[in-house]
């Protein structure tokens, strides 16, 4: 009999979310909760024997007591339905006191305290001591084991995966861990907490590794480890459908993994270039509608990156007109919000004379254009001694040139646009 589990991670309840307005952020926050509820409902309907939560269930400093109660009630609901719950703590929900010497919220929830809210089927792994629990069927037979270890602080850098070893027995063995596997896609945006190598995962001998920390759902190549991703995208960086993994594990067999979506809304990013033919915002609507397709979508927060020359550049660069266009697009596309990014947009103009006529402006334009290019380090050097804000790396820093170059992306066009007299803009 396969060991059937629901693998979720990185719920990040009560985390700070993206959204351009407080109203949108409230919607996204509610969506994070809804995704958790969706996961619970799926677990209750999916005949799973265990729910694995691979850390970062919440952001400890941001967790409200109300959400803590909701989270606790959710786990107890699962337990009441006979589903084993295994939750290992991550760097955002560490198991011990790290915030100004106070105990972490994972401890305060009291889920591992029988005197408080503890339940025999709810297991919280919040220490560096590995533990294994057996999941039993109704008739008492062990259908699987879960071995896990938790983060105790928000900056655990020890390789916790090495502490885990497959328990003896014939039951399918699942490991649960919040970790960052080196050299894995999607990890570049995440801090290296409790890092491990793929080799560690392979050597441990588990039938399935339920991982958390990386918010992108996917398998760690060459292993039986999967990142569940987070159930709900929280900002424009976390685009697309999100959810968890429904897994079936048998000893000695590759796990059967079925992605399931729990997100209540989606962040999407569309990049549009070659906009020379756009003369009216309605044409932009048509292009976007074509890019998004006609399928029924979840509520969406859409980010549109516009690039290149277009007759609409001037109007879209003006904040008021851009806001109007965004509202019209949101309405036409039936999405929650549309954000137009016009940084890379430039107007269609003939600057032949400008480029053919020697002038200080032309020199400056050429300088900026060259500096923005990766290989124009010498040109950048002329700009490096400018007094910049504290945001910039200090002079002499190896990152300063890169910082300056990032600032100079599109600067040449901007200079040209600024140099144009009012009538010419």
């Amino acid at each position, binding site marked *: 009999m396969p060991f059937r589990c629901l693998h979720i991670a990185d719920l990040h309840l009560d985390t700070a979310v993206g959204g351009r307005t407080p109203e949108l952020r409230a919607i996204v926050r509610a969506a994070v909760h809804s995704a958790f509820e969706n996961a619970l409902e799926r677990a209750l309907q999916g005949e799973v024997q265990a729910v694995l939560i691979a850390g970062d269930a919440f952001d400890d400093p941001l967790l409200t007591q109300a959400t803590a109660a909701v989270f606790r009630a959710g786990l107890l609901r699962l337990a009441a339905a006979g589903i084993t719950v295994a939750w290992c703590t991550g760097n955002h929900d560490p198991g011990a006191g790290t915030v100004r010497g106070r105990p972490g919220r994972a401890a305060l929830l009291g889920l591992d305290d029988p005197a408080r809210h503890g339940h025999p089927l709810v297991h919280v792994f919040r220490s560096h001591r590995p533990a294994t629990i057996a999941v039993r069927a109704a008739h008492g037979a062990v259908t699987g084991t879960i071995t896990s270890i938790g983060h105790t602080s928000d900056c655990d850098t020890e390789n916790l995966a090495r502490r885990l070893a497959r328990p003896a027995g014939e039951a399918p063995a699942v490991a649960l861990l919040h970790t960052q596997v080196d050299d894995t896609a999607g990890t570049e945006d995440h801090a290296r907490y409790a890092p491990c190598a793929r080799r560690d995962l392979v050597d441990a001998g588990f039938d399935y590794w339920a991982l958390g920390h990386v918010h992108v759902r996917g398998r760690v190549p060459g292993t039986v480890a999967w990142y569940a991703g987070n159930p709900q995208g929280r900002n424009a960086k976390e685009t697309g459908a999100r959810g968890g993994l429904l897994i079936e594990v048998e000893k000695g067999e590759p796990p059967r993994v079925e992605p399931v979506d729990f997100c209540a809304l989606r962040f999407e990013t569309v990049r549009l270039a070659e906009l020379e033919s756009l003369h009216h915002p309605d044409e932009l609507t048509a292009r976007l509608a074509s890019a998004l397709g006609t399928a029924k979508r979840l509520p969406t927060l859409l980010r549109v990156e516009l690039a290149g020359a277009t007759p609409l550049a001037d109007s879209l660069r003006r904040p008021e007109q851009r806001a109007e266009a965004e509202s019209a697009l949101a309405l036409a596309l039936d999405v929650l919000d549309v954000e137009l990014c016009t940084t890379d947009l430039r107007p269609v103009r003939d600057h032949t004379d400008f480029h053919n*006529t020697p*002038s200080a402006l032309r020199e400056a334009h050429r300088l*900026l254009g060259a500096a923005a290019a990766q290989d124009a380090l010498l040109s950048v050097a002329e700009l490096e001694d*400018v007094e910049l804000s504290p945001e*910039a790396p200090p002079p002499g820093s190896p990152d300063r040139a890169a910082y300056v170059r990032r600032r100079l992306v599109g600067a040449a066009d901007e200079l040209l646009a*600024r140099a144009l007299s009012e009538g010419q803009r």
Partner: protein
Amino acid sequence: MRLLRLDVECFGALVDRSFELDGDTFVVEGPNEAGKSSFHAAVETVFYGFQPATREAHPYATWGDDRRTLRLVALVETADGARWQVERRLASSAGLRLARDGEALAGPFLGNVALPELQGTPRALFRAVYSLTANEFREPNDEGLQELIDELLLGDSGLSGMRSVRTLRAELAEERARLWRRDNRGDPVDRRLQRELGDVRRAAREAADAERQLALDERELEDTNRRIEVECAALEALEHELEECELRAELTRLQRLRAEFESIDLSGFGAQPDGTHVELEDPVPLAHELRAARVALEAPTARLAVAPVLASARALELLRRANAIEHLQVEEAEDRHDERGLQDLDETTETERSRAFDLVRGFAPTVAEGLEDSPPGSRSLSSLPLGALRSAARAWRGTCEQRAAALATGQRRLLPGLGVVFVGLCGAGAAALTLAPLWLGVMGAALSVTALAALVLLAATDGRHSRAAARTPAAIAGLAVDIGLDPACLVGPDAVLDALGALDEADEALGRAAVSHARAERVTTTRATRHALWRSLADEAGLLRLTDAPQSLPVALLPRLLRETLDAARDATRSATSDAAERASAEATLAAARQLNGELRARQRALHNGLHRALNRALPSTATPGAAFEELQRLQHERTVWEGEWRQLARRPRFAALVQERGASATESEATLDIPEATADGSEGPERAPVDADELRRQRTRTRSFLDDAQRKAGELAERLRTRRGTTPSELRERERQLEDELRDTRQAHDRLALLERALVVGERRFRAAHQPDVLRAASESLEAITAGRYGGIDYPDPDARRLVIRSNVRGERVTVGPPLSRGVREQVQLCLRLGTLEHLDRGREPLPLVLDEALVHWDPARRAALYPTLRALTARRQVILMTCQPDHAREAVAGIGARRVELSGPDTRDPRGGPPHVGGAART
């Protein structure tokens, strides 16, 4: 671009003029008001159009009323050798027409635009560099001129529609300073965001702390609730223990009391030997009941005390008299002697008397007269001896009849007749006795006796009468005289009898009249009496006092009023009578009740005394039997309650265990409700061990106090958990992130602007390095040539300082171009700067003519002469047009650079309005 020909139809002072300009250098010479400025403006207008583009506002529109269309036609040649005809016209609007040389100018006019080849050279640049007057050589402190120099030397010139680098730099510097600056002057956006960010971070920390505190609170709440549960259980156990302890003590007391009760003689209660049953009841309610019954019985008695007042003697007298009046009323009603009846009686009296008078007057007139004077009630005929006369008459007639009967029928016929008369008389007498008053009865009886005697005599004297029948008896005669009877009536017995009959009839009439009168009198009297009685009664009843005029109060009203009064009195009397009966009954009942009450009280008192004595032994504190009884009742109730408690206590397992320990079964104890007796070792009741109840109470108080505190604290914690308000940490974190993003964007925007600004500086530097040296070198060479080596080395060392400097070769130092340097030298520097710029400007542009309009007026002849070679060198790429009003200057130019001379004649003095004169003749070149 060269200007080959210029035809002026109308433009300022020039009207219908034509200038052939096919050459490199020209000098336009003419006195003041000859049209040199018009010519200068016409050249610019050919290139760039009319400015302003309205005829009314244009300074060179025709003066006076002759508003003509401004029109210029020129032939120009571009650098590539193409020749164009240019027509500019300013009528209602300004227009431009172009045509190849040799083609006709046709087609619609274009707008007032510059020539296509001049798109890269704006009019301002033309004016600043190519078309100069002495006014253009101003001091560099003029902003416009300075900008021009900047443009000339810093590479901005030639960019159509572009703002100057200096303007851009200033704009960028201002903008970036608004975003961030190290000294934070002006409160830049960065500082503001940092402040807000600090606030948000502080609020976020506080919110996070608050949430964490809430979590701790929740845990504390759970602990508190758990302790509350424990303490509640302990308190419950304590309560039970204390309850048990108190119960035990109470049961002990009850045991003692029960022993005392058992010694009380209660034989007075329950079944009595006489078969009655006396319940042990509270006498107080019974006494209350009896008291209530007595009060109920005394109520009618109290009501009776009022009745005698109502039934006073006066009222009874009134009642009696009212009855009499009622009786009178009844009689009055029966006799129908009301007002109308009384009148009838009077009428009857008068009628009967009149009839009697009439009858008497016929037989006895004198009697009649006496009768009329008699009172109505009198009966005067009765005093007359009519009976005697009638007897005599009848005797007389009997005699006569006897004699006749004897004669005819004998005596048998007389006797029946006499018998009839007798009977009649007896009847009359009886009737008189019955109907008439006494005296009439007596009179009737006398008459009857008299008639009887007369009959006896008549019968005895029958024979004698018959004898005497034939004559008038003397008695009759004497009686007739006494009576006053008319002698005519004495003619025979029948006549006498007839007269007597009439008199009798009159007498009867008088009798009836008297009766009627008497009745009327009686009615009148009765009415007066009744009225008097009414009034008396009314007066006594107080009715008359009710009115202001008692005498005017109608008597008719009095009966009704009195009747009402009497009815009231009668009702009162009747009520009093009824109450009296009721009172009698009530008093009897009351007496019986009092007796019963007394008996009951006596019995209760006896019982109480017995109880009191008994209870005094058991309850020495009770002072009275009532208190003792109440105490007894209370104890009974208490015992019942405690027995119930004991039953509950007996059901408890621990007690059952205790009982079991003592060898008794709980069931048995519960069934018999027996309180376990003292054990063999002397301890009482179901005690486990001696327990200090006070200590238990103190412990309970402490526990309760702790529970109160804990529950209050739990309530506060729960309320705090429930009412958590305010921005959540995640919201604050979002705001913090948003501010961080804004701060980062702000700083990055600043850095970008700073880099742009720096790029402009670098661009300027590069441009100057690449191009400025040529311009300055050419300008310096010109200056050295013009000043014969006295000055040179024009430089623009610091764009920010915005100062031109030259080198004084004589003094060997650098001199700032400005006062106290002479004006001529300053103008020469400015001109040389422009001459040096021309080559630079020509790159990528159409070379334009250089027009110097009186630009050399401040120059000395030597330096003017030194300029001409330089100008001649320029003619290789452009035309040079000089304008002067000085013939000497014109000649110098002709001689110096071989310029063709164009002379303009003087002003037309014929214009009477004094306006600018029209130039009359054609140009002479």
